[in-house]
């Protein structure tokens, strides 16, 4: 893409893409998660995010290892299973000038971590929450997770007879303000959605179908490359113009849905379904429920709300990070203790 700088090798804050790279991946070759890491690198680079401002947060599992494979110049926290939301909440409260990027998996989110996940969504904490969703537990060798579709088949032949949790429908209902689904194999859609996510103020929840080549990429799986290539059904075509780039697209009302992002960027959702309104919560949830019945895997931006106050707004925090406030602002003066003591006498 075009950038504001004359040198095409650096982004608009003057950094080369190598400054966004991470360590060598230890995940399986062909793992969807590696492609997602690549798109995160591209998106952060293209958006000109300072790597030092980013905190990479994760829980436990293959997905949660991946923050080691991108953005080495960012602090990272690989916490405990299913608890990334609380650790991230604390870290963001401590310093809301950082940008939190959480990477979780379907087990980490929809099973052990569902409690923290739902409460995180309610708070609209400013952060990007990515589920690298492959429907199985990889590190423990291929058990179903709670996002596995009913009727999908394990390598061993076991059929899943429980309904899938739709994390997007949940997130929309609970209060996340930017919710979408993508596919690790769809470079363009995923990259565009990530860039828009970076521009959003509030909780972004992206469920990214990310096939597990070792345990869930076979015939009968609904989270395989083949299945996604066949049944991926974008609900809109996602376009994004960052704030530092001039908008020169022509308006084509009726066909597109333009969203002015908090930082001045523009998110353009070209309608692929008649009259799909990404600001209508109830309709978004209904559409997702119907897609399940029709065995479709909808992708795209399902819901966006740029007006909702974030958790930081609700807490009415000072602009400076709490972590580095000077003692003069955090320790009340001697006279304050004196007054309290007098009152207790």
């Amino acid at each position: 893409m075009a950038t504001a700088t004359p040198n095409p090798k650096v982004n608009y804050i003057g950094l080369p893409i190598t400054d966004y790279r991470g360590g060598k991946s230890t995940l399986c070759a062909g793992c969807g998660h590696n492609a997602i890491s690549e798109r995160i690198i591209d998106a952060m680079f293209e958006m000109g995010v300072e790597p030092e401002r980013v905190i990479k947060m994760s829980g436990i599992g293959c997905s949660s290892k991946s923050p080691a494979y991108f953005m080495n110049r960012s602090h990272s926290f690989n916490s405990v299973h299913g608890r990334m939301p609380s650790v991230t909440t604390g870290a963001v409260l401590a310093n809301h000038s950082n940008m939190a990027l959480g990477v979780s998996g379907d087990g980490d989110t929809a099973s052990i971590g569902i409690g923290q996940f739902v409460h995180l969504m309610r708070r609209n904490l400013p952060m990007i929450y990515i589920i690298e969703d492959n429907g199985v537990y990889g590190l423990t060798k291929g058990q179903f997770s709670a996002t596995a579709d009913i009727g999908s088949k394990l390598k061993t032949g076991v059929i899943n007879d429980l309904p899938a949790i739709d994390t997007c429908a949940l997130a929309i209902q609970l209060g996340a303000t930017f919710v979408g689904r993508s596919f690790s194999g769809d470079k363009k859609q995923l990259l565009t959605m990530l860039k828009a996510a970076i521009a959003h103020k509030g909780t972004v929840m992206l469920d990214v179908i990310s096939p597990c080549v070792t345990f869930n990429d076979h015939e009968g799986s609904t989270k395989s490359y083949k299945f996604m290539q066949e049944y991926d059904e974008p609900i809109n075509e996602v376009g994004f113009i960052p704030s530092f780039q001039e908008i020169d697209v022509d308006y084509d009302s009726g066909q597109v849905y333009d969203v002015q992002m908090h930082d001045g960027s523009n998110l353009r959702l070209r309608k692929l379904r008649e009259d799909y309104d990404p600001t209508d919560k109830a309709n978004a949830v209904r559409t997702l429920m119907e897609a399940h019945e029709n065995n479709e895997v909808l992708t795209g931006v399902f819901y966006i709300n740029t007006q909702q106050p974030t958790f930081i707004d609700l807490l009415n925090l000072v602009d400076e990070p709490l972590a580095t406030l000077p003692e003069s602002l955090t320790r009340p003066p001697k006279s304050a203790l004196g007054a309290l003591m007098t009152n207790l006498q």
Partner: protein
Amino acid sequence: MATGDLALGQEQGQSSARQRVVNDFSIIVATVNGSGSQSANSVLLKSIFGMGVPVSGKNLFPSNIAGLPTWYTIRASKDGYVARRRDCAVLVALNPETARQDVLNLPVGGVAIYEENLNLKQYRDDIVAYPVPFDKLTASICPEAKLRKLVKNMVYVGVVAQLLSIDLTVVEKGLRKQFAKKQKVFDLNFGAVKAGFDYAQQNFTKQDPYFIEPMKATAGKIIIDGNAACGMGAVFAGVTVVAWYPITPSTSLVEATTDLLKKLRVTPDGKATFAVVQAEDELAAIGMVLGAGWAGARSMTATSGPGISLMAEFSGLGYFAELPGVIFDVQRSGPSTGMPTRTSQADILSTAFLSHGDTKHVLLLPGNVKECFEFGCEAFDLTERLQTPVFVLTDLDLGMNNWMSDPFTYPERPLDRGKVLTAEDLERLGGFARYRDVDGDGIGWRTLPGTKHPKAAYFTRGSGHNDAAGYTEKPDEYQAVMDRLARKFENARALVPAPVAVKNGSSKVGFLAYGTTDFAMRESMDEIKKGYGRDVDYMRIRAYPFAQEIHDFIASHERVYVVEQDRDAQLASLLKLDLPAEQATKLRSILHYNGLPIDARSITEEFATKEGL
């Protein structure tokens, strides 16, 4: 109340049949919870305090919103003893459900003040009875029926004040303070006090020997509960992130903290320099605390036993990834749900090793409200200095009851934010290894997320790591980290609050105790001296890991009694793990674990039995 106490409740009555008993007895008020008796109890307590008499109050309440029996005991003690006393000489019986048993519990010569239609005199002819028409009196001064339940309590304050010779102007002063800005409420309540006072004056002739007489022992003192004191400590430590989940008996700690933050920590333009989050559970609460600590905030949570259990996994992460955070544990009776409104010290062992693997934690053990404030403050310095979670263990007795104290002293020492590298430091050093022991104290240097330097970042993980924070499964690298953590913990011995040698003379017998056991322990030492002519030494433990002074104290005594409020001798067990074998055999235990705060006589009697006195 506990009927088991009845048999032991005779000492006071026998000695007091004819003699005046001045400033040395307990009052018990029996009501139902949810009846608003708390403010009346508090006014009575503060009135005795206002008379200059050392006083302590304890609320024995049910785990219930409204309608179940609750008792409040007030101990006046000219000698300054503030522990629970097993016998209560003066009963105010306002709960018909328990009145019969309450009056049966009185010692011979005790006093019963009660709603006249309860006719408690029928159960005892060896007590002094003062029947009062509470309902009638209340109706006459409070036309609004819905307020009567609350006002009725103030009537008893007036009756008690008159009978015990508590100065009415002192009561008035206390009430005025309590209802500072609400003249109407004050008028109504003081009217009720006066109605009770006048009724007693006109209808009773003093027949009992119990009196409150003015002293000067409370001048300059304050009254506060331990939870409020802990919260105050945290606020004066500059806490910025509080995440919690409501649980008895720690809830009021966070509420007090929040109130103070709202009062003292809002900028002129109305912004908050703090964040308080009521989390979805204790797992999330500690997760937020550690996330905030990692990112550089001073963070805390408060909980009790069940919450501590839920925090186990994260506590291990905090230990291994070396994250700061303060956890207040206001202990209650376990196991499991246990008795949520009863006290205990039974969390110490599981908290010391909370989580799987080789995990151990720093524990601070305040023994009074002043230390709640001081340790509540110091815990934040220690957690950032040591880069490990710090637990402050109090209990329900200390946390939820009112205690007299000297005023708290302002912490003059600047905050110790620990070892943190700035961008300038990194520029000068050319980089850093997060877990490298460059200073030889077992503590590495950290950077905060957001530090604007390309070499600031590191990878925090609960998985095996080397000193550069890289993932490892290499035996030597893993073991090096584990050994350094052990060294760091060893060095903490000298950094945590030192024990207090209350008495360290030439006795062959020593006592060790911590927390609220101290109140009863001090009284018991006097009882042992008075009753058996024996001098004993006593050291109060104030932190784990144990300081060298504790080892020395044990080494210099033949026998050491460890007094604690749990069944399994947890403190003694923790000590034994720390001691050489020949020292460990010196320890003997005196244990108290019925949910009520420990009292001096329990210690004295057990000691006498064990010593064959």
